[in-house]
């Protein structure tokens, strides 16, 4: 399964300076499908990767929100 690699991709994208949001799509889908597959197989900790991917999305969303707010405020 490629889930850990996709998850690492999400982590690296969070660390990146200006990663476009659409780069998250494929790793997110991979994590979702992989998590569903792991759940179907009753694999241990099947929830882990989807949950971490969700955290990554939440953090990326929060980052996007704060950046847009700062940009909207503009220089004083």
């Amino acid at each position, binding site marked *: 399964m490629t889930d850990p690699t996709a*998850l690492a991709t*999400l982590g690296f994208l969070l660390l990146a300076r200006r990663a476009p949001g659409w780069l998250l799509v494929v790793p997110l889908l991979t994590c979702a499908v*992989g998590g569903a597959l*792991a759940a179907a*197989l009753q694999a241990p900790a099947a929830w*882990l990767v989807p949950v971490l991917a969700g955290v990554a999305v939440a953090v990326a969303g929060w980052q996007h929100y704060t950046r847009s707010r700062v940009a909207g405020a503009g220089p004083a």
Partner: protein
Amino acid sequence: MKAAGQLRHVGITTSEGRRHEEFEQIMRSQPLDFVQLSYSLRDHRAEQRLLPLARERGIAVIRQPPLRAGRSAAGAGPAPPAALGRRAAVHELGPAGAEIRHLAPRGDLRHPRYHAWSTMCRRTSPPREAPGRTPRCVGAWSSTSTACHDRVVDLPPRQFSDVLAAHLRRPGSSATTPNCGRCSRCCWRSAAGAGQGLARAIGGAGPLGLGAAGRGLVVGGVGLPPPAFRGHQLGRRVCRLAFGAQGLALLWAGALRGGLGFGAGAPAVRIAGGLIVILALIGVPLLGAALGRPWAQPRVSAS
């Protein structure tokens, strides 16, 4: 699922001699149609217990890969043990056996006809067709492909094996393996499959290692009825293309746009990103070790 018609055959697989004890327990306790295991000139551990058990219980056997893609007799490993593996292999070859018998002593198993007999082998022995003759080969995946010419599923007429069989029957035919156009190896040779091959290569060597493309949707594909098998194949292609596109996108965003350099984001974001990377690269593998099996591997019960 089998009773509902969603699966036609149920089997288990292992390779390189791993988990044979557990494998044997499952073979003893579950109504399997087939097993797949490593059995070749080089690796003949299955002869000790698994093959006799398969014969006893009438379970068909898929060997992978039958002749180790030529490495066994070419000196990469120990010599074939007292010709036992060789004899066993040749025994099941059917029409191509005599030819392989000539090829094997020369270590010439890279010969294209290797693919020929592995395909012939799977043609000749569908599962459950001759219960008195098990174990027998019902299929033999090539060393690189899990996708093509699987005898267990209902391939349309004149797929790889048929083409190849006709090719071999032709007097004076050259030793060129026909292109099935389905497996990854053959796709490299066809213009139509070049895109897949490129996507696969990019996905495998992507900047963030988005390798093993195309493994995400369905485990295996053996025994799926034709519609599901086609869906499985489509899923694999979609995954490959997606990973290839992701690799290209990362290259574009990172190398060309310079947007992937590590920069000064909010501390919370950096901490979250770092933790996710650490968990992905270290935590998940350690989790597997802590559980005693790979994290994504389901618990296998022989009871």
